[in-house]
């Protein structure tokens, strides 16, 4: 088997998180009732199918600008979103379609936003990188790498200041960790957390590459979770392709954060099957073999296997879900296609709240 040095390192890192994987299995139990997780499986399948159709729509010229799909990383978003309450909030960067869909935003409205239609979640004025669904706790959707991390940190402070026990999740990529936009607010989070005033979980979606630059070429300390040590923030790593491992860790961490109001960091080791974005045609920074090997650890397949073993899924159910998801995404495409564009007046609305 052809192995390039980068690839070997990834395997190595995966091995260190097997511990979490096994713990999750023990917690979940081989024969335990995994049926409650079927909705999350379905949402992950929906997110996957959505991303595939979004890419096709992009190639056809229906979606403009940038398109960053989450294909291969679904378990990270699902595992954490399954662990929070409806009144909790979360921020992410621009690879945000799956987060919205898994949280429950209708795929219709998400696709319409990608198509730039007035029926989109942001009335067509944000696009792929700026998905907001404040009613469901999704506060964006941001285009500048790392730029949302200070916002999430302040938002967490506000939650405690307002005497609630709501929690804030902040998803970020490995590429964001070297920006001042990461270090400055994380330091503030630790300081405020000392007073119990910063109930935030920083979730590093380490998909190994910041566009074309691997983690190895971005930092000397490739154990990204350990970067939180510098700020005195408890941290850990988890196998991001294993939904149950993520969910198990998330439950524990979210409970802790909710109780103490102190921030936590977690590095979810995952992989991006698709290119970084629409223009990343050749993916010269990694080999096809590496991608192929990673696809064997497809989080949806892994979850499907677990669910089948536990009797929650079988061929028929898988097929039913597949067909229903297909139909839902097709309907979303049609909805987006048929929806109108924003009216010309919309150019000048939502700039100010007053005046």
């Amino acid at each position, binding site marked *: 088997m052809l192995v390039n040095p980068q690839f070997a390192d990834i395997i190595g890192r995966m091995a260190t998180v097997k511990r979490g994987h096994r713990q999750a299995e023990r917690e979940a139990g081989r024969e335990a009732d995994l049926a409650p997780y079927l909705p999350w499986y379905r949402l992950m399948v929906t997110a996957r199918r959505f991303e595939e159709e979004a890419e*096709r729509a*992009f*190639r*056809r*010229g*229906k979606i*403009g*600008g*940038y398109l960053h799909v989450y294909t291969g990383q679904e378990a990270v978003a699902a595992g954490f979103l399954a662990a929070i309450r409806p009144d909790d909030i979360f921020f992410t960067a621009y690879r945000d379609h799956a987060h919205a869909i898994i949280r429950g935003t209708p795929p219709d409205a998400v696709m319409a936003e990608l198509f730039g239609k007035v029926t989109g979640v942001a009335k067509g004025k944000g696009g792929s990188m700026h998905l907001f669904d404040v009613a469901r706790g999704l506060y964006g959707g941001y285009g500048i790498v790392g730029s949302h991390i200070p916002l999430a940190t302040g938002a967490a402070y506000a939650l405690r200041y307002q005497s609630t026990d709501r929690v804030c999740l902040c998803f970020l990529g490995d590429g964001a960790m070297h920006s001042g936009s990461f270090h400055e607010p994380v330091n503030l989070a630790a300081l405020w957390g000392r007073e119990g005033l910063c109930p935030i979980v920083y979730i590093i979606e380490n998909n190994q590459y910041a566009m074309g630059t691997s983690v190895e070429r971005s930092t000397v300390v490739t154990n990204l979770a350990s970067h939180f040590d510098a700020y005195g923030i408890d941290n850990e790593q988890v196998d991001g392709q294993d939904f149950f491992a993520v969910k198990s860790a998330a439950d524990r961490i979210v409970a802790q954060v909710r109780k103490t109001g102190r921030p936590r960091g977690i590095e979810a080791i995952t992989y991006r099957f698709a290119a970084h974005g*629409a*223009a990343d*045609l*050749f993916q010269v920074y990694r080999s096809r073999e590496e991608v192929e090997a990673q696809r064997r650890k497809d989080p949806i397949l892994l979850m499907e296997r677990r669910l089948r073993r536990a009797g929650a899924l079988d061929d028929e159910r898988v097929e039913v879900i597949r067909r229903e998801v297909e139909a839902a995404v097709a309907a979303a495409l049609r909805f987006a*296609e048929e929806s109108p*564009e924003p009216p010309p007046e919309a150019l000048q609305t939502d700039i100010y709240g007053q005046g």
Partner: protein
Amino acid sequence: MPKMGDAMTEGKVLRWMKRPGDRVEVGEALAEIETDMVNVELPAEETGTLAEILVAEGGVVPVGSPIAMIRRPGEEAGRHVPSGPPAPPSAAVPERRAEAAGGTAAPGRGPSEEQIKASPVARRLARERGIDLAGIHGTGPEGRITKEDVEAFIAGRAGAPSVPPRSGAPTPSTEEVPLTRMRQTIARRMTESKQQAPHFYVTVEILMDAALGLREQLNKDLGEKVVSVNDLVLKAAAMALRTFLNLNASFAGETVRRHPEIHMGFALALPEGLIVPVIRRCDQKGIAEIAREAEDLGERARQGKLRPEELQGGTFTVSNLGMFDVESFAAIINPPQAAILAVGSAQSRAIADGGAVRAAHVMKATLSADHRVTDGAEAARYLGEVKRLLQNPTLLA
């Protein structure tokens, strides 16, 4: 034609790697596409048979255009590769127009008017007064004509450069009295009026005995001496305008603007100058009402307490120098009005009436009229009507 980059609007089919009739599998390379940045292979999105090639090698089409048809197994011919209409209009083939050599036609250099330097407000003033900028000397930088330059020109001072406004020590016996604002305004407006409106003059003599009698009667009835001859003249002049609407008008270039209502100004001499308060809808008011209003306006004018709207909006003016025993005079039209009526005093004179000589009070009234708006015959007929009303004053009530 797939979109391979966010800014890509069109692509070229370089080479087809399959021919119609070939089987294709999902993911198999169908064609080589050239985009603005790179060449890529286009993978098939469906498994089936390549039914038809729609764009030949070398063809350039917009993103989103169909370039081939694949028939799925078991399908009849005629199924399109779904691609939908191309993206919104902005994705149309970008026009690579050659840059027009040189500029497009430069705005034609107009006549010399363009080359005269003048500030915007100076231009506007000149335009409003119908003055040619070419005749004004500019004292601003590089000969720019300023507002002051135009105002100086209008005020009638010689625009010739040799007469700077403030220079030269006055000779011992000359006194330089600065013009008040009011005087400046009068100077400007009267000059303007004489320069622009071609004046002509028509005079009639009016027998005023009956009118004087009416005045006395009215004052007795009212219990106070409030009605004056001028009030009667105002009423008569106003009523007569109803029949001669053309004189209740203004010259407006291409048209004569006839005013729907009759607002009579009457000239009032103040120590500092002349003002013209206005009695609105004068033709509809009774003589006593006119008298009272005129007295009130006059009083407040002397106190300087008139409101701006009481000095504006007049459509016709009456000027009366009767109190100075003047026999007759010709007034200057108050722009933008079309005419002004100047009356002298009602003097006791001998007249010939029915072959015999008798004494009567005779008043001369002179109409100055704007020949752009009216002519002698109409002016004469108007005066005839004024005369008729004053000589039959019961008609004035």
